Every structure is written in structure tokens, then in C-alpha cells.
């Protein structure tokens, strides 16, 4: 087991290295540099700045000093936020993206599965139609429309919740971002659950359970729920990866200092170190998560372990 984990970790090193090389080349290939602005700098000052940030060195040398910094856990200074290091920025932004994502996903699963089950049990009823119409609306309206609408209604008109992030106290500021993130997921999960639940409810073993005199509640709880979760589960894999990366749109609209915002802003500003740092961070995260999942499979299924 330990050997297997170690082997997998070793196998991840070339993957990560490849990601770093590609990302490094791509950010440097983008036209324009981190310090370009409409106010063009005199050549002497430009040279001084390039020197201070080692941008005057040949690219291979820059790459290896970056790599050696990484190995020492140093992702370098941000080119745009000159008072902060990339490590600082990521460690303050990631927990926020993670928290918002986790809360949104949790909300989505609880509400989505309940609504989907309810709709499946009352198939073709008015309730079913209404729920699915709502879900369809939830899927079709993009978050950059829903979020400002929620803000207008709940924050500007009714003033129940804060309209933005910074400087507002209490848990209230989490509500709108989490709802905005969760809505499309709720809709999607509800539709998936309904479809697969209807399938399962029509199968033989459910009929047998009914014949034995079990009530609907017990049937759903004991027999139908588990098998109908399969499509939801396979959907949640990529969905969780997506929320971990932080929602750029929601972070922009509410002004949340999460990783998604840093990534996009970093790319636009040509903040080489920040963009690279976030790419490396995610690559590592994905590799580690995959490893954890594989190990979990091993725990659950002894056949994999033996191989």
C-alpha cells in the first residue's frame, strides 16, 4: 500500500514538471510584459526594473531559478502586487474559494437530491412540472445574470443582505455568493436525480419491495436512493474540481478576494509569477486529489490493492 502510494507520487513528478514548463513558456510567450503601461518607461528605468526582477536574464536561466525557488517552497514575489509574495496571495485566497465552493456544493446536493426525488415520486404531477421548469430555468440563466438580480432584490431593494464582500461583518456576506454558486448546480443535480430515480423506481427489485408491503418513504430511503446516486456522483467529480478552482464570475461580481480573481487578473496583468504559482498549485492539488481517490478505491476494493 505504502509502496503503491510512493510509486504514484514518483510518477506525478514528470507530470508536474511538464505542467510547469508549459505554463512557464506560455506566460512568457504572451505579448506584452508585466510592467508595460501607457506611460512608457525611459530605457534606463526599464532596465533597472528588469534587473530587479531578473527579467533581463536568458529564459532558461529564469526557468531554473524559478524551479529552484519552487523546490524551496518560494513562488517568488508577485510582479503586480509589489508588496506581496505569491505564497501570501495564494494562502490567503485559497481558503476562501474552498469554503465558498464547499458550502455551495453541499447546498446543491442537499436541495438538488431532495427536489429531484420529490419530482420523481410525483412524476408528471403539477409539482414535478414546476420543479423541473425551475430547474431548467436555473440551468439556462447564467450566473452573471442571476447574481446581479439577487443583489438588486435582496441587497439593494430589501436591504436584507450585504451587496458586496469587503468590510461587511457577519455571515451574511456568504449567503448571496453561495446561493449564486449553488443555483445552477442544484438545478443540474435535481434533473439528474429525478431521471435516475424514475429509472430505479420502475425496476424489478423495487416492485418486490413494494410487494413486501414497504412504504414509499422506506423504499426510497433503503433501496432506491443509493442506486440513483450513481449519475450524480459521476457528475460531482468534475463539479468539485470546478468549484475548487474558484468561480471567477461570482468572485468578480461580489468582489471576493479568491483564487479565481487572482488568476484572471494575474493573466491580464502579465503577473508571471502569480499565474505560474496558481497553475503549479492547482496541478499539485489535482495530482494529489487523484492519488487520494485512487488510494480510496484501493481501500474499498481489495482487487486494486493486490495488483
Amino acid at each position, binding site marked *: 500500500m505504502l509502496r503503491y502510494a510512493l510509486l504514484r507520487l514518483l510518477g506525478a513528478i514528470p507530470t508536474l514538471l511538464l505542467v510547469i514548463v508549459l505554463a512557464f513558456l506560455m506566460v512568457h510567450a504572451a*505579448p506584452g510584459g508585466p510592467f508595460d503601461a501607457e506611460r512608457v518607461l525611459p530605457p534606463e528605468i526599464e532596465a533597472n526594473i528588469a534587473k530587479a*526582477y531578473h527579467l533581463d536574464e536568458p529564459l532558461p536561466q529564469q526557468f531554473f531559478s524559478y524551479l529552484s525557488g519552487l523546490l524551496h517552497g518560494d513562488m517568488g514575489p508577485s510582479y503586480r502586487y509589489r508588496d506581496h509574495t505569491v505564497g501570501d496571495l495564494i494562502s490567503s485566497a485559497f481558503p476562501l474559494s474552498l469554503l465558498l465552493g464547499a458550502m455551495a456544493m*453541499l447546498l446543491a446536493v442537499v436541495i438538488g437530491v431532495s427536489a429531484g426525488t420529490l419530482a420523481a415520486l410525483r412524476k408528471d404531477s403539477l409539482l414535478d412540472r414546476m420543479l423541473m421548469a425551475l430547474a431548467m430555468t436555473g440551468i439556462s440563466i447564467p450566473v452573471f445574470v442571476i447574481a446581479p438580480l439577487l443583489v438588486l432584490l435582496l441587497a439593494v431593494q430589501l436591504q436584507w443582505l450585504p451587496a458586496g464582500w*469587503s468590510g461587511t461583518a457577519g455571515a451574511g456576506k456568504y449567503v448571496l455568493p453561495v446561493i449564486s454558486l449553488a443555483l445552477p448546480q442544484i438545478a443540474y443535480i435535481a434533473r439528474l436525480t429525478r431521471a435516475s430515480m424514475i429509472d430505479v423506481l420502475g425496476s424489478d427489485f423495487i416492485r418486490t419491495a413494494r410487494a413486501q408491503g414497504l412504504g414509499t418513504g422506506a423504499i426510497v430511503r433503503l433501496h432506491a436512493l443509493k442506486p440513483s*446516486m450513481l449519475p450524480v456522483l459521476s457528475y460531482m467529480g468534475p463539479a468539485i474540481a470546478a468549484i475548487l478552482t474558484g468561480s471567477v464570475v461570482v468572485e468578480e461580481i461580489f*468582489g471576493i478576494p479568491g483564487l479565481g480573481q487572482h488568476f484572471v487578473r494575474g493573466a491580464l496583468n502579465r503577473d508571471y509569477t502569480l499565474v505560474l504559482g496558481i497553475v503549479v498549485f492547482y496541478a499539485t492539488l489535482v495530482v494529489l486529489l487523484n492519488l487520494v481517490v485512487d488510494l480510496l478505491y484501493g481501500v474499498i476494493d481489495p482487487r486494486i490493492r493486490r495488483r
Partner: protein
Amino acid sequence: MLRSMKLFRIVLLLLVGIAAGYLLLPLDDSGDGSPAVPTLHRGLVTDPESVDPQKARSTQAAEVLRDIGEGLVGYSAEGKLVGAAAESWTISDDGLTYTFLIRDNARWSNGDALSAADFVFALRRLVDPATAAFYAEAVVVIANAEQIIAGEMSPTELGVVAQDDHTLIMTLQQPTPYMLSLLTHPSTFPLHRGSVQQHGDAFTRPENLLSNGAYKLVFWEPSSMLRLQRNEHYWNNAATAIDAVNYHVITQEVTQLNRFRAGEIDITGSVPPDSFAAVREQFAEQLHIAPYLGVYYYGYNLSKPPFADNPELRQALSMAIDREVLVEKVIGRGEAPAYSWVPPGVDNYAPIRFSYADMSQEERNATARRLYHEAGYSKDNPAQIEVRYNTSDTQQRIALAIQSMWAEALGVQTTLVNEEFQVLLANMQAAEITQIFRGSWIGDYNDAHTFLNILQSGNPSNTPGFSNKRYDQRMQDAAKQTDPAKRRLYLEEAERVLLSEHPVIPLYFYVSKHLVSPRVQGWGDNVLDYHYSQHLSLATD
């Protein structure tokens, strides 16, 4: 199936765990744990990249720095130049030596006395190549600054000397009538030597930063918020009315507007372009629009055809643009049409205008058509030109309008190319593939020089590549002149040359736009768009 179910449960448990873990921890609210004191909430459209006075670059960073730091001179609430850290100064007759007397009671936020040596330290640091300061060029007028920036002299040879703790002597390379205005710029602010030496690069952290302005920085979360608190040691602390200022970084202008509507922000950094008409109607009282030292222009690439050596075509294109329609109908956000390069409202300067500024648009179009034909173009042989601008709705709208104005008045065929901003900048500087490009210039100090200077031969920001002997000569004449009245005539003459040569098409002058809550008192509109928090107060509800 069993396997999947287990995985599903694990994932769910994990999600619950993360959420619960956070919720059990005390939520650190605004993150600064500050007590509720009367607080002014200001919106910023982008992050200040640094609060290091010598490393900061953006107008947003400068806005925050004007609250936490203070230079030798500053602006009063009425927009007049007044002594700040310096209580008085004298200027030698040749305009080359400035002697500043620093206030006895000027203090750092830890109570240490502010001394002339703190200014010497900061100004040397500004020109030191190792600092890599963007604004080092701002002080090239100080003796030896240019050589130090180029690495030919040591920073200690800068023409700034502390004669004693309270006397600072500054020697200039040439008379610089706008020197005092320049010294309000944050790049010239002093630094606490001890703290910089002790903390190195980390001296700007809120827990380390010592400041000499009306406020001190107590909290900073990038992309989110900076919180400032009253600096009890500030020499004029008694005059500061507001105890705390929160700068909220909100890049989405619509979000700023929403937060203003919700009462969460007192002063917005801007007004969203698309909601401008609605805002003007709904918030007529709160909307402040004022002339601003900035010009929006289209530049010609003068090093390549078709615009090199083709002043007729350049003038024809400039004249055929109906600027009134552009600002009123196409943009519609209160900007002023530009018929000159230097914006109105600049101190000690009489605005020069295009010779055709007083014509009607029909007359201008007629002249433009004549020039267009003189340049060798006609209906059968139309000019084919390309305009580059950065990707944005507003830029697109302006470009489309100009494209159709040119087509209608002259029959010009225009191709529009939009690019990401950094790509456009790179292309403008290379001047290889550009023909006409979108540009803008914001003044650094209240003097015509800040605009005219960039179009001198060889200036790095001279992206059109304009080079004219008469123009350069007038600019040099002005630089040597100590008498402001005479200097002004040279600058005005230079602009006349500029406007007759058409290296650029000035389109409109910027205006500053803010929504200011009625609870904020003491707000004054000014061309520099400087609004020190220490001059404001909050009405008690």
C-alpha cells in the same frame, strides 16, 4: 455500486467538514476585527499595487498614499498648494535652489520625529537603480538624478541635502516652475529609515508600516480592502474629522454602484458607463462630474505609410470627426470634446485650440474633403486605414462611430482591430504594424508640461514618434525660462506647432466621476481629482 456509495459519502462528509470547520471558527468578519468607529467607505476600481511610496505606480495607489503619507507640500481642500510636512520654503532667484523648513511637530505614526534626512533617504531610494522605481523619472529635474538612474553616479550624489533636522535643500538641474506641484506626488514622500532598514521589503506590511500622514494602514487584504485609522501623532491630527477609512477594492463598476445604492459605500471610484444616464437621473444630487487632467486620443504611427509625411490626410481625418456627436451621442457620459492637446483647467496656461475649432461640422467636412483630395485620395481611390484599440465596449463604440464618420465625410475605408490591452501596448511601442491606435494620457502634475513633454523627440511615451524641430526648440526654451509668464508663452507656442502638425487626434478630455453620499461633507471637485480623506467629514445621522 457499494463502492460508489462509500465514495459519495466520503465526499459529502468532506464537504460538510470543510463548511462546519469554518463555521465553528469565529468568522473574522471584515477581517480586521476593528471596533465600530465612524468609518468612511471609499471605492477603488483597482488594487493599489503597493503602498511603498517609491514603488507605487497607479492613481489608485497614489490615492491611498495621499491619505497615509505626506510630502513637503500638498493641496488644501480648496485645491491650493500649501505646506504639508514643510511649513515654509524659499526659492532662489535663479529658480534652482529650494530650501524647505520642516515642521517641528511633524511625526511618524510611532511618535518619532520626522526629519529632513527621512526625505533625503526616500528621494535617494527613488532614483537608486536597485529600487527599480517606476516614478524615478518624475524627479529627473533634481541635480544628478538622471546620472544616478542610469547607474553612472551614486545615489548619495543626488542634489538633496539635509542641512539640519528641519532644513532640506534641493538643487535642480533646470528651473522647474511645476516643482512644488511635483512634490505633492507620493513618489517623493519620506520614509522612516529605521523601519525600512529593520524590515526590508516587509516594511509595507500593515503591522510594520510607519506613516507620516493623517492616517495609518492597519489592514490590507489584496483584491478586497485596505483599512486606515487616524494617526494620532499627525501634526494636524486635531483637524482630522473621520476616525477610519475603508478603501474597498471593487473592479466591477456595477458592483460599486450597487454597494453605493445599498449604503455600503460613501464615495465610488467611478460610475458604470452603461448605467450613466440612469445614474444621472436617479442621483442628480450625489453625482459629481468635474474636468480632469486627462486626454483621450487616436495616435498616428508617423514612422510608416500612410501617415508619415502626410499631414493633409492626418488633418482631414481629424477634422472629419464630429467630436460633439462623439461625446454626447456615442459616449454620453459627460466628457468634454477635445480641440487641443492640453486639457482646460491647467494652471498658468491659456488653452490653445485647433484653428478650425469654431467652424461648423459641415465646414470642417468640406475642408477635410479638400485636404483628402490634395493628399491624392478620392472616391475611386479611397484611403484604406486600420484602427487598433483595446477590447472593450466603449472603445468599440467609439471606433465604430469614427469609422462611419470617416466613411460618410471622406469615403475612407477603415478596418477595426481590437486587441487585449497589453498586446496593444506592445504593438504601439514597436510601431511596426500600427497605423492609428487608441491612446490616453493622464497628467502627473498641474502644468501643461506634463502633456507637452511626452511628444518631444525621443520621449519614451511618444508612441506616435512625433519629431519636430520647432516644437522641441520651444520646449527647450520653456525649460530654461524662470519667468512663469514668459515660459507660458513658449509652451503655448509649442502647442500651436503641435496642433498644426496633427501627430495625434485628441478626441475628448476626461472628467472625473464620483457618486458621493449626502452624509459626506467637505467634498470639493478639482482637476487633479485629489480628495484627501482628512478634508472630509461625516454628517451625524
